[in-house]
């Protein structure tokens, strides 16, 4: 897994003192990190605390990151470490440590169903967002929907999607972008009462 130029450019900005660039990395990976942490820490509020701790540790260790591996792989290890320590220090029952032998890229399982309780508020918010997004996807023209599904659910590269759909890479990029724009428009309508409202850190 080679270092992706996007993550690397953000990491380098952080290393030069740009804290805003770290916000972007957090925004990109927060869901993956929380999901990962929740394998060890079931309570969602606690999982967020642990995820927060993991991100801070990653920030402090960032001077040591040189881009030899993917940023997410490196972040993944820090998150696992932090989660394990959290479990151990809170005297929980032993966790199945084999979990971290799995490929960090296995974020594409579709399971996500809850077994234990989540705060009602959190549950509603997640369901609402999911509902809105999926409805928006259903409403997309087929070529846009296919492109974004192949990207987000199958994890294919633009090159691979171009092959699958029989079109140039530039078209793939454009389709994914337009799909996101359409979904985003819908998200903002539902959750922010219209377009153009001032938005906070997402």
């Amino acid at each position: 897994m080679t270092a992706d130029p996007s993550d690397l450019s953000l990491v380098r900005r952080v290393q030069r003192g740009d804290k805003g660039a770290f916000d972007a990395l957090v925004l990109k990976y927060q869901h993956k990190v929380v999901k990962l942490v929740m394998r060890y820490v079931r309570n969602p509020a606690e999982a967020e605390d642990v995820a927060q701790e993991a991100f801070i540790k990653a920030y402090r260790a960032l001077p040591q990151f040189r881009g030899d591996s993917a940023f997410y792989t490196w972040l993944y290890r820090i998150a696992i470490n932090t989660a394990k320590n959290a479990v151990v220090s809170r005297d929980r029952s032993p966790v199945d440590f084999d979990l971290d032998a799995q490929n960090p890229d296995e974020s594409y399982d579709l399971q996500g169903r809850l077994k234990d309780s989540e705060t009602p508020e959190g549950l509603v918010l997640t369901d609402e967002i999911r509902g809105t997004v999926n409805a928006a996807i259903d409403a997309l023209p087929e070529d846009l929907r296919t492109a974004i599904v192949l990207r987000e659910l199958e994890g294919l590269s633009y090159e691979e999607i171009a092959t699958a759909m029989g079109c140039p890479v530039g078209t793939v990029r454009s389709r994914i972008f337009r799909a996101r724009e359409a979904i985003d428009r819908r998200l903002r309508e539902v959750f922010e009462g219209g377009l153009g409202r001032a938005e906070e850190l997402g």
Partner: protein
Amino acid sequence: MNNDELYSQLSAMFDGELPAPECELLARRLGRDDLLKARWGRYAAIGAAMRLERGVRLHGQLARRVSSAVAAEPAMLVGSSPAIAGRLAGPRLIRWWQPVAGAAVAASVAAAAILWLRAGSPDAPIIAASPMIASASASTSAADTSDAATGSDSYVVPPSVEGPSAAPPTELADFVVAHSEFSMPLLRRSALTSLVSSEAVSDSADAARRAGSTRSDEDRKANADPTH
């Protein structure tokens, strides 16, 4: 660049599919543009929602809390480009120096030069031990008789004199030089005269000469005027 083109780049960068040079530029902008950041965050939420992940957030506390915590952390500076951290100038890398046309050489010569700026010449004469500085060498006898006469604000120079001694290790010199960028006293030149002994400097210079290549006459002429 209109918004469409900008957001298209943002989308490609999110997928790791934007070429590196454009990433550099967009990364800069993303760091300081809150609206762009929010859009980027929504791209992440879209993917997580499609994968039916738990805890998908649009305006979640997590990102904001991490952001506040990071804001409270000290400034970070990594690599070779100096930057400002608070009131301090950026760190001075102990650098690798290179002849304008040649191979890289070790930094000890440079360290020696910087040390001199910071610390004083190794050849400075040793003054005789004396209880009051006013009776020392001529350059300090700037008449200040009132100093000798007063009580509370007159100071005694310690009588011991550091004679020539074994040069402290080179690695310490590098650390002291790296630190000197941050030392704030008026006397930024800490005396490390025993550190930069003539022998140490010429050893490293010899090593540098062996490692580096000689420069051509054209190069020397071209560089005769340092204000290019």
